[in-house]
């Protein structure tokens, strides 16, 4: 089959994405082995992996499927709690000591549980459109947080006890989830390797999905719902597919995140956290997966490196959201910026003559970012 230009640049885009992630992993891993990595950065490695997965999966919903979901942290919390409980149950009841096995089972369980919750939420939510969908996902995120706040789970006498609201569990039960105190006494078992593999899985799933029949159906639904339906595309099915896939990935990231520390509290997964991830996605470019990877990494590391940035982080995020949206969506400003960047573009175009491969990738990167506006009808 003859390879078209669009196809070639897509492949290059994917290769660049994977190469970047794998390269970064090996550099960091060798730094860990050589003990040249700073303590604070080492502590950040697993969270960075989690936020990358969160950003990429949210980008699937916002950038690819075109729906603003404001409850992504809710799925993360479902995963984190599930992971913590499963890991605790495996140790306390089944005596599973192998941490890798426990981690794998916990992450898988976190993904499955978040997927189920995502499907249950998706059925009503995805019938709605635009702003209503956004506000309802926000509402669900808050409901999940409220429910987790009054959830009690413990193990004892060879069984699992659970209750909701303020009912006390029997004496002598080892608490795994203790209401507002969150998931307690977690034995941290997450590893950087696990985070790296999770990122790879996420990238394979999302990138391959986007470049397939289902992915095209999702994008078509985003671009024009009525036209997609008229072509026989089952719009709800594909919106659901993007939404649930993102929820599963967020749940897996949550499990990894939860098992990286000794406690998980409900206040870690507020609406603010969903907005943080939204900032990663917006700054990286809607629909641009590589962009999400880079911005999630940068914005997680930056507050650690720059104290001054940490203080003004939220303020900067707010300004970023506003400016990125105005600059990419206002026709006048877009015209001005594109004129400013015209010399740069023609340089790349000339470079592309000599190195078609690289030029394609550059064009693709620019094109992805540009693609978001003009959705209005």
């Amino acid at each position: 089959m003859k390879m078209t230009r669009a196809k070639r640049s897509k492949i290059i885009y994917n290769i660049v994405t994977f190469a970047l992630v794998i390269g970064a992993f090996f550099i960091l891993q060798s730094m860990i082995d050589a003990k040249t990595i700073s303590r604070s950065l080492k502590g950040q490695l697993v969270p960075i992996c989690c936020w990358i997965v969160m950003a990429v999966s949210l980008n699937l919903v916002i950038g690819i499927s075109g729906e603003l979901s404001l409850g992504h942290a809710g799925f993360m919390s479902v995963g984190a709690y599930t992971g913590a409980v499963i890991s605790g149950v495996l140790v306390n009841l089944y005596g599973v000591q192998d941490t890798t096995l426990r981690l794998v089972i916990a992450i898988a369980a976190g993904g499955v549980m978040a997927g189920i919750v995502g499907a249950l939420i998706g059925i009503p939510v995805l019938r709605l459109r635009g702003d209503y969908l956004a506000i309802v996902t926000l509402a669900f995120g808050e409901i999940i947080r409220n429910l987790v706040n009054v959830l009690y789970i413990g193990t004892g006498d060879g069984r699992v006890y659970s209750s909701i609201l303020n009912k006390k569990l029997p004496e002598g039960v080892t608490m795994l989830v203790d209401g507002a105190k969150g998931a307690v006494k977690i034995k941290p078992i997450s590893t950087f390797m696990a985070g790296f593999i999770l990122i790879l899985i996420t990238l394979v799933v999302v990138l391959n999905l986007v470049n397939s029949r289902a992915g095209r159906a999702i994008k078509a639904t985003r671009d024009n719902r009525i036209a997609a339906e008229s072509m026989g595309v089952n719009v709800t099915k594909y919106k659901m597919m993007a939404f649930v896939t993102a929820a599963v990935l967020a749940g897996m990231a949550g499990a990894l995140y939860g098992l990286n520390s000794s406690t998980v509290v409900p206040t870690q997964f507020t609406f603010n956290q969903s907005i943080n991830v939204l900032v990663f996605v917006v700054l990286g470019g809607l629909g641009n997966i590589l962009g999400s990877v880079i911005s999630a990494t940068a914005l997680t590391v930056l507050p650690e490196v720059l104290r001054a940035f940490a203080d003004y982080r939220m303020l900067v995020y707010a300004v970023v959201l506003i400016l990125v949206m105005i600059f990419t969506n206002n026709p006048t400003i877009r015209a001005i910026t594109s004129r400013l960047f015209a010399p740069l573009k023609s340089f790349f175009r000339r470079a592309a003559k000599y190195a078609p491969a690289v030029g394609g990738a550059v064009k693709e990167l620019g094109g992805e970012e540009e693609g978001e506006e003009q959705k209005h009808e």
Partner: protein
Amino acid sequence: MIFLDNLINGLSLGSIYAIIALGYTMVYGIAKMLNFAHGDVIMVGAYIAFCALQYWGFPPVLAIVAAMAVCTALGVTIEGLAYRPLRQAASLAVLITAIGMSYLLQNTALMIWGANPKSFPRTFINGTTLRIGQLSVSSATIITILANIVIMIALTLFTAKTKMGKAMRCVSEDRGAAELMGINVNRTISVTFAIGSALAAIAGVLLCSSYPILQPTTGSMPGIKAFTAAVFGGIGSIPGAMLGGVLLGVIEIFGKAYISTELGDAIVFAVLIVVLLVKPSGLLGKQIREKV
């Protein structure tokens, strides 16, 4: 007695929601956007009133006027700087911008006034408690409910009788046609933001008179709930915002009293979800059909 107590508290909270919801519903009806930052304008209004009372020694009425003035200016500025450039953009972009604006206001307030909660001073609004038999009603409750009724009547008359009110209804119906009829759409939307923001200031003072803890996040939860109220009543409808707000307030107080304190917010949001699924146009709203 407890039931009656709860009912009055519910009506009072609901009235605050209703006043906030009016701002949401007018902006949504006319500019077709969810102004996520509306809740934070409330917070700014409350802070201005707080400063006026506490530091500048303004009398209460003047403090409210000052808060309204600042919020009006703020609302119009936000609209002009952040939302106007996106008039033709997709709703996704506008909503993200509005979320950014909400965070900008919250974090600016955090830098100016700090994270420590301020306790809102006592004024004539919450100064006295009325006793009717065994029932004790705060003056804030009565003033809130009365303010809600007055505002609602005033706004209904404004949109029905005045030239600007008619222009608003035109823009809400069909922006393009309104423009062709010589209506200045940008000015109409600005005025809408001005009115909504002035009401937000009043809501902020009333909210903090009943719940006197003031911090940068004070406005966000009531804001989201008030939007829920606006959707409940039917977005774009002024009586709908009032009805939705009052009902939601009552539901929240009763939910907290009889089901669970911790799940109060969850109950409110469950109402939103049920309403959107059963009757997406809300109690008093009109159904909108997409043009093909």
